[in-house]
């Protein structure tokens, strides 16, 4: 990912402690700890060589070293400059994904679930014509459903709308 690094307006001046970098280092260390904790519950049944617990410990050591490396980079402010971001569209898309998961989870079916995701994503990219987009989404997901269900005989989750087709 090297795109547009030079042209971006840096979120903060370089050569300063990068807080996000420190959070990343802390997360890596936390994952390493989880790995070691999980590996302690495994029984080594191998007579010779490595048991199932060896590899997680090796990966955990690697992650711990990388946490230190990332921490040093963050302290030196060595992270590449970042552009400002707009959180609203990101949240909108995540809401769409949450809706999709909820609708599939509660048996609302494929068509409603993907339509919800389509409309929220479209709104995240600046569209405000929600009614129009809903119609497009419904038509599109019905066509996809029919293509997958009838032509490729893949089973997609069914809900009230799918049973009508």
């Amino acid at each position, binding site marked *: *990912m090297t795109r*547009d*690094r030079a042209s*971006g307006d840096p979120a903060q001046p370089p050569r300063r402690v990068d807080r*996000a970098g420190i959070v990343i280092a802390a997360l*890596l260390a936390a*994952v390493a700890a*989880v*790995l070691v904790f*999980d*590996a302690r519950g*495994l029984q080594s049944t*191998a007579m*010779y*060589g*490595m*048991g*199932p617990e060896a590899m*997680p410990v090796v*990966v955990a050591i*690697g*992650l711990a070293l*990388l946490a230190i*490396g*990332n921490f040093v*980079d963050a302290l030196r402010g*060595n*992270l*590449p400059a*970042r552009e400002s*971001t*707009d*959180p609203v*569209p*990101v949240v*909108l*898309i*995540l809401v*769409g*994904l949450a809706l999709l*998961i909820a609708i*599939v*989870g509660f048996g609302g079916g494929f068509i409603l679930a*993907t339509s919800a*995701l*389509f409309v929220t*994503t*479209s709104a*995240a*990219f*600046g569209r405000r014509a929600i009614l129009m987009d809903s119609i*497009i*989404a419904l038509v*599109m997901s019905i066509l*996809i459903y029919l293509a*997958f269900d009838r032509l490729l005989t*893949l*089973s*997609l*989750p069914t809900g009230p709308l799918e049973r009508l087709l």
Partner: protein
Amino acid sequence: MMDTFAALAHGMAVAIQPMNLLYAMIGVFLGTAVGVLPGIGPALTVALLLPVTYKLDPGGSLIMFAGIYYGGMYGGSTTAILINTPGESASMATALEGNKMAKAGRGGPALATSAIGSFVAGTIATIGLAFLAPWLVDFAVRFGPEDYFALMCVAFVTVSATFGDSPIRGLTSLFIGLTLGLVGIDKLTGQARLAFGVPELLDGVEVTTLAVGLFAVGEALYVASRRHHTEEKLEPVRGSLWMTKEDWKRSWKPWLRGTMFGFPIGALPAGGAEIPTFLSYSTEKRLTKHPEEFGKGAIEGVAGPEAANNASAAGTLVPLLTLGLPTSATAAMMLAGFQQYGLNPGPLLFAERPDLVWGLIASLFIANCMLLVLNLPLVGLWVRLLAIPQPWLYAGILVFATMGTIAAKPSVVELSMLSGFGVLGFLMRRFDFPIAPVVVGLILGPIAESQLRRALAISLGDPMTLLQSPISATLLAIALIALLAPFVLKGLGRFKANED
């Protein structure tokens, strides 16, 4: 030598069966159509189209895959030329000159030289693949488990540390992938690792879920978050589509040189097509008779890198097919395609299913020819695809991306993982961590672990077995050098900077 011809002829016979030709055609068409969408590179194209092949037999599906692979590559360069949005870093050189050509009203010749160059490079590189593969297979059958483990160490290091911007961030990505690869039931002892009592996690992390989450969902989130920064402009294709005599004269040498860069570098487990494309670009810039045109739309700057890109794509199939070693995100997705049928690429597959392997290689030739015939006449259709408004485009991409997961495993856990990987992909893009090493780590991590454990079980637990095999010792030394080189070079650079 004769064996190769016989095998290839047999593969051709498999590939030109009408049904298989149809699969190749559908693959090329779908691959181009998806690959042409801005922000979608070949790896994501393959990942998104994987569910389409679920119900086919392995032979047909792999042939369709060959088409999708080359189609996705071609679609990516069309996007790079017409809207300057390289879907992947390997198309960046193309975007540099190609987009300038399109702005100057020479979009047609730019697309043509890229299509014909891809064809030339793809054909030469596929011939290279056909001749190199049996030779490597002969060599690889002698590999013991310790040698395989050492080979994977080389791949881990080169993919993540050696050629990236920052070895630390590259290795961090790799270790995220290795961690995800640990999830699930340990194959040797049947114990669950990192499953936290969630039954869906016992099968491990699905490669397609990870790839689609990181690439598709992550990219959509990233583009949405910085929508206020960029405005994409589609260049209309004006004037003649065809290349003039002068264009041909200036293109053929770059095509061949690009192939010479692309194939060997792709075939070595050196990771990715960025290096050969940039090598080719700088070489053409040095050798050209029209240096004043570089940066303003020089046809050599499109012809060379495009050939290098395609040749290296065929090159990465060499370690993938002969050793089961994916060295790029796209190759990792191809491996996932094999694995969905329980097939493991490697020397054994050449011996056991020659029809499948050689059918695939022959299909690469056919897909290449189809691309040449299909793409220039259909360029108007691809341009119309590019004109889809951004909101609908990304909404459609997300629907398609989640659909693959819904079709394979319609569970709340799997969809949540997809969304979680999307957030991870977004954060990795934002903080400039490379993505391909995560996918390679997930796929290769478990294989490397089982090879190491097998090697240690055979040696009764003596780790010196890794150094006693000459192949393994050499490969481990290469891995160590490749790991330390970027740090040492960086240190030297700093030393020099201090002296100035």
